[in-house]
């Protein structure tokens, strides 16, 4: 019995011994031999902002190459929306980018309204702007909280979520849900805001305004924060343009491109606010841009709530307006008794509209539309195609996070693994939007 061969060659692993998922990872694994090690920073990881898997090729703490693998949260929302009516699509669409539900809803509803050729009433547009900008503040607070947690400022997590709770209380008081509201509908809003909405918003704005200096005392000149974020993850303007990057990451590279200014929607051009930019193009610049954006959003909200017009919140056309005027009905919240008396007793036509809208929804004229809004992460675009029936033919969503995953490799080459965490955090990807 000859002695087993223990020479280095025999012990070295050959390619197929590495049991990899996926067809062509073998070439990466071959890099094992020249001193680099290929390892997964996988879907279940505390600092990948959701289920993002990064196949890292490391040379002792220095990142040589990053291969993002996505799809671990693919929910098939776009296909599901094709089997639901136009109004039901709102509930699917709001679950895509779960940190900015109002942006998804408003972008989808604007696209449908353009296809229908109608416009939401003035009051509905102003409320949409208020809720969207507050949603931007909440999304930036979650970004600040999780990035602080990842880079070691654990207390930032507590402060960030404390403020967000205040915003979510307001959302819940208006739409009934803390997240995934389905509050915005094609043609306006599902129901009007509560009478004390204006005062609550003003109180919220002053409270949030007083808290921002607190964060800046904590982080602005914190040596650890500066060390971890300055000069990390450089992406200059041309690279941004190549990779199709928009939003705070692009503005941190010095380009003042903001859809709220260049292609305004929902009447946002009547409020004055400025678009914060920075020239650092690194993680610290993105931190500064996002902090300034929180202030600007609060500015917009306070102007919008002062200019809140009266009137209806849903378009007048009965063929589109969602019928149920929610109120206290005989057995709790539901159709108010007057409405029931109106459709059952007074007008046959209202009954037909109610029945048709509730059973199969309204038909949208054939055509295709691309509607984009400025979401907290960048340009969120809805390419909606209708073939004249009551169901969308195709709803494609251009999500900024999906586009921001690509430059991770370019931004992190030569950095340490710890900086890779800072770079992925500075891009603020939300996997719900990436995987749709």
């Amino acid at each position, binding site marked *: 019995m000859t002695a087993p061969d223990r020479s280095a060659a025999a012990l070295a692993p050959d390619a197929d011994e590495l*049991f990899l998922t996926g067809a062509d990872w073998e070439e990466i694994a071959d890099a094992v031999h020249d001193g680099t090690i290929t390892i997964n920073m996988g879907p279940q990881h*505390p600092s990948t902002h959701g289920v993002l898997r990064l196949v890292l090729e490391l040379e002792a703490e220095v990142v040589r190459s990053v291969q993002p693998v996505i799809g671990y*949260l693919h*929910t*098939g929302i776009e296909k599901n929306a094709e089997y639901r009516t136009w109004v039901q699509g709102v509930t699917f669409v709001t679950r895509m980018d779960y940190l900015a539900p109002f942006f998804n809803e408003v972008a989808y509803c604007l696209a449908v309204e353009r296809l229908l050729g109608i416009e939401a009433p003035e009051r509905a547009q102003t409320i949409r702007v208020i809720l969207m900008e507050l949603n931007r503040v909440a999304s930036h607070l979650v970004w600040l909280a999780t990035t602080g947690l990842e880079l070691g400022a654990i207390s930032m997590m507590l402060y*960030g979520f404390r403020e967000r*709770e205040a915003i*979510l209380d307001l959302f819940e008081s208006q739409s009934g849900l803390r*997240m995934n509201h389905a509050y915005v509908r094609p043609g306006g809003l599902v129901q009007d805001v509560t009478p004390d909405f204006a005062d609550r918003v003003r109180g919220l704005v002053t409270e949030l305004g007083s808290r921002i200096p607190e964060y800046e005392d904590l982080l602005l000149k914190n040596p650890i924060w500066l060390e971890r974020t300055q000069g990390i993850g450089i992406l200059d303007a041309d690279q941004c343009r190549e990779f199709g990057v928009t939003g705070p990451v692009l503005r941190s590279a010095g380009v003042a491109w903001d859809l709220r200014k260049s292609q305004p929607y929902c009447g946002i051009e009547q409020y004055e606010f400025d678009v914060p930019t920075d020239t650092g193009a690194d993680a610290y610049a993105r931190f500064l841009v996002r902090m300034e954006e929180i202030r600007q959003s609060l500015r917009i909200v306070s102007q919008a709530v002062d200019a809140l017009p009266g009137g209806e919140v849903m378009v007048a056309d009965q063929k589109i307006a969602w019928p149920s005027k929610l109120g206290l009905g005989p057995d709790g919240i539901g159709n108010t008794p007057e409405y029931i008396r109106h459709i059952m007793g007074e007008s046959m036509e209202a009954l037909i509209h109610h029945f048709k809208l509730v059973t199969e929804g309204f038909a949208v004229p054939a055509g295709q539309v691309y509607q984009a809004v400025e979401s907290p992460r960048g340009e969120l675009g809805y390419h909606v195609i209708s073939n004249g029936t009551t169901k969308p033919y195709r709803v494609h969503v251009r999500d900024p996070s999906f586009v921001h995953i690509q430059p991770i490799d370019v931004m992190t080459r030569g950095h340490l693994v710890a900086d890779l965490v800072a770079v992925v955090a500075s891009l603020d990807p939300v*996997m719900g939007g990436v995987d749709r």
Partner: protein
Amino acid sequence: MGLEERLPAGILLTNLERFVNWGRSSSLWPATFGLACCAIEMMATGAGHYDLARFGMEVFRASPRQADLMIVAGRVSQKMAPVLRRIYDQMADPKWVLSMGVCASSGGMFNNYAILQGVDHIVPVDMYVPGCPPRPEMLMDGIIKLHDKIRQEHFADGRTAHPDQPVDA
């Protein structure tokens, strides 16, 4: 060589069981298995306002080796299912699974090709929490009910409740 495996079932050890279960249930460390919108609500529950630390769930362990409870928070896609099963297998015993939200419990509104219609297809689930996403109070209510369930467990149950077939990798 766990002694617990070989202890006889029966009334002799009820006090010991009650003591051990009390110890286990009052410091369940959850594994961070946040997937989608429920993960944000889970983080909100863990943050200062709703504060999961009051139930001994002070810290969310990233690695399954140090976690007792896996909160499946969000929709489980077909690509994520083997990963979830692997993480569950790599968790140290005794372990429990709380399926948070309707998407984890039954596929929820995404009845399509991409989503696993209920996480109990691949892992034994101890507690289902409804809601989309469940409010932090609902999640805490689910956790408190899970604590009560753990308090009534017997040593012998462990051998049958969680049949651990190895995943055929």
